[in-house]
């Protein structure tokens, strides 16, 4: 027994003594850590974001870097878990970074944006929950519409385009789906459109027959579908199978090429609003999508574009400032507009407001013959 206890204590002591040394970084580089979902529920989005960001980093480094400094980008996996993401942002901050990219999950961003704020390091996130930019944090910036911007656009489309009086909402019960559902329901109430069926579904759900039965019984003028790609595809297939005839409306994900590939013919006729799309009829985006596909062997989704443009945004602002200054970076980005003429990598003209929210043109689209077809380009909110 005593010998055993000694071994126990020795082992404890030994293991604890080992430190947590970060990698040493050479001079002549600028450190931009990427804290992102590479495993767990968010891995699909996170992988896209990582690959998009790395594509930009490689392009920029091949062209000489930013102000002559190469970008040193490390990826920190959050495991889609807020607690782990906090540790990883802390690890990233310990490297004394210039800017931090990610994460995408709203819950994770809510945990760690206070850390980067305290360290006065700008954090460019992929999250879309409304409250992130409403907490008065001057260091957090978005790469895509917050739900408070995208939902009014899709709501207008439901009222003016579809002319629906009643609607069913099908959403995935996680923080992405619930956030979208809450924002959408609010917009519906404002427009006097009645939500007649409010259907919660599970992440990873395979059988959507009960959900379709419910929607069928409610008989709405349209169905708003807000879930992840695979579940979207499974729902569309089941809906077609049971002969659900009203229009299916979505926001970005539902109209993505991934869902179309997975759902096959059933996806035809799906329509909605696309905030950001690798299928947009814009030459710069199409060139991006093509290169991404060639490099990584799969098609980019909007998260890939988010990661890609985030890196180019950092490059543009730094060159505009003429120096590396994290604090000044945050100040410069507020109220700034970046155009593809200034830096092609931004792909589309985009503006950031005083809260860190992004504004850019977006699209109304419909799936026709297995392709996302843009039917209308909605201008930037600010340019009206």
């Amino acid at each position, binding site marked *: 027994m005593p010998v055993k206890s000694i071994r126990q204590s020795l082992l404890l002591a030994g293991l604890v003594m080992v430190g947590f040394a970060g990698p040493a970084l050479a001079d002549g580089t600028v450190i931009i850590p990427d804290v992102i979902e590479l495993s767990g529920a968010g891995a699909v989005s996170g992988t896209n974001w990582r690959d998009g960001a790395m594509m930009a980093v490689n392009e920029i480094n091949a062209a000489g870097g930013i102000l002559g400094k190469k970008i040193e980008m490390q990826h920190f996996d959050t495991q889609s878990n807020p607690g782990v993401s906090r540790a990883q942002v*802390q690890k990233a901050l310990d490297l004394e970074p210039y800017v931090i990219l990610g994460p995408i999950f709203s819950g994770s961003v809510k945990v760690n944006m206070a850390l980067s704020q305290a360290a006065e390091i700008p954090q460019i996130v992929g999250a879309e929950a409304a409250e992130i930019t409403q907490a008065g944090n001057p260091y957090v910036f978005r790469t895509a519409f917050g739900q408070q911007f995208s939902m009014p656009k899709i709501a207008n489309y439901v009222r003016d385009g579809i002319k629906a009086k009643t609607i069913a909402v099908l959403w995935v019960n996680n923080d992405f789906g619930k956030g979208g559902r809450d924002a959408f329901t609010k917009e519906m109430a404002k427009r006097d459109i009645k939500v007649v069926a409010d259907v919660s579904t599970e992440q990873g759900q395979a059988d959507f027959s009960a959900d379709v039965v419910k929607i069928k019984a409610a008989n709405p003028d349209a169905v708003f579908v807000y879930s992840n790609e695979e579940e979207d595809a499974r729902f569309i297939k089941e809906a077609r199978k049971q002969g659900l005839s009203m229009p299916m409306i979505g926001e970005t994900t539902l109209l993505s090429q991934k869902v179309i590939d997975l759902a096959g013919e059933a996806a035809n006729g799906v329509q909605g609003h696309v905030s950001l799309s690798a299928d947009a009829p814009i030459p710069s985006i199409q060139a991006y999508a093509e290169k991404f596909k060639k490099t990584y062997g799969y098609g980019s989704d909007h998260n890939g574009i988010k990661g890609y443009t985030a890196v180019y945004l950092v490059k543009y602002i730094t060159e505009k400032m003429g120096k590396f200054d994290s604090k000044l970076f945050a100040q410069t980005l507020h109220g700034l507009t970046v155009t593809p003429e200034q830096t092609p990598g931004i792909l589309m003209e985009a503006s950031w407001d005083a809260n860190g929210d992004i504004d850019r043109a977006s699209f109304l689209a419909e799936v026709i013959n297995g392709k996302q077809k843009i039917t209308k380009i909605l201008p930037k909110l600010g340019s009206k």
Partner: protein
Amino acid sequence: MKTLLKYAQVALVVLAIAALLAAPLVLKPYGIFVLSQWAVMAIAAVGLNLTLGYAGQISLAQASFVGIGAYTVALLQPFGVPFALAFVAAGLLSFAIGWVLGYPALRVQHHYLAFVTLAFTTLVFLVMRNEEWLTGGIYGISNIKRPIILGWSTVKPVPFYYFALGMLALVTAIVWWLLRSPWGRAFTALRENPIRALSLGIDTRRYTLFAFAFGSALGGLSGAMHAPLVQFIEPTSFGLSLSLTLLLMVIVGGSGYFLGPFVGALVAVIMPEWLRFADGLYLIAYALLVLLLMTFCPSGILGLFGRLANLIETRAASARRQSLSAKLDQKPVSS
């Protein structure tokens, strides 16, 4: 010889504690945070080790109790309830729920208890996610404040780390005392031979329930520390995967060994961080490591060391026996 070993043992524990205390001198805030996570998770693992390692009950509900503790602290905070009070409340609530859940422990044993507690974990997750009026639903609760203990603020990483270590020490001391009390001895009797324990007049029903509830209470205390550590809680953190991770901590460390959960939590919390140099493959490396570990020391890391120690002792004993018998053999010749 025995006393020397005893001194050496104490010295090593002191050394380990000194290393933990000195860690902030060399570690950056990230390392401090991870070590704090270790301390907080170790509390829950110590609890599960009590339920599983000492009382022999397989529970997959420990994550729920961590969640219940975390939500208790987070929900009481807006009402200005002092942390100490909320901390105790988290423990008591988990104890009570554990007691109620423990009832099936009397009806079903072994793997069936694991299944019931597995179901419980998922049910608690669903309640946390769906009852938005109470728990904030899937959005969780953000901006949880770190406590000020008797005027000492734990807001910064290092003070909170010492606070977490202190709480771990407190829990460890209580469990140490408990295991040496008649209660603790009854636990072990229960695990080794429930029928014999019953015949010896131990009220197995009460003790099983108590072991289960006490282990659950430690889960709640761990959660009460988790909420201010991360400063944000949401339901998915307290799902089945955390229960499985806690089980892994206890088994990998060495189920039934007092220091087992400390080592196990080290493996589960800190090992993946060490392996991050392997980039995208770090979780694969971690899984392989656990597989290898289980293959070569199924009784856990401390079990392996226990076996080695036994081996050394047996060798020493047989050497002694040999030299003695050699002397004995010689004696008849000389006499």
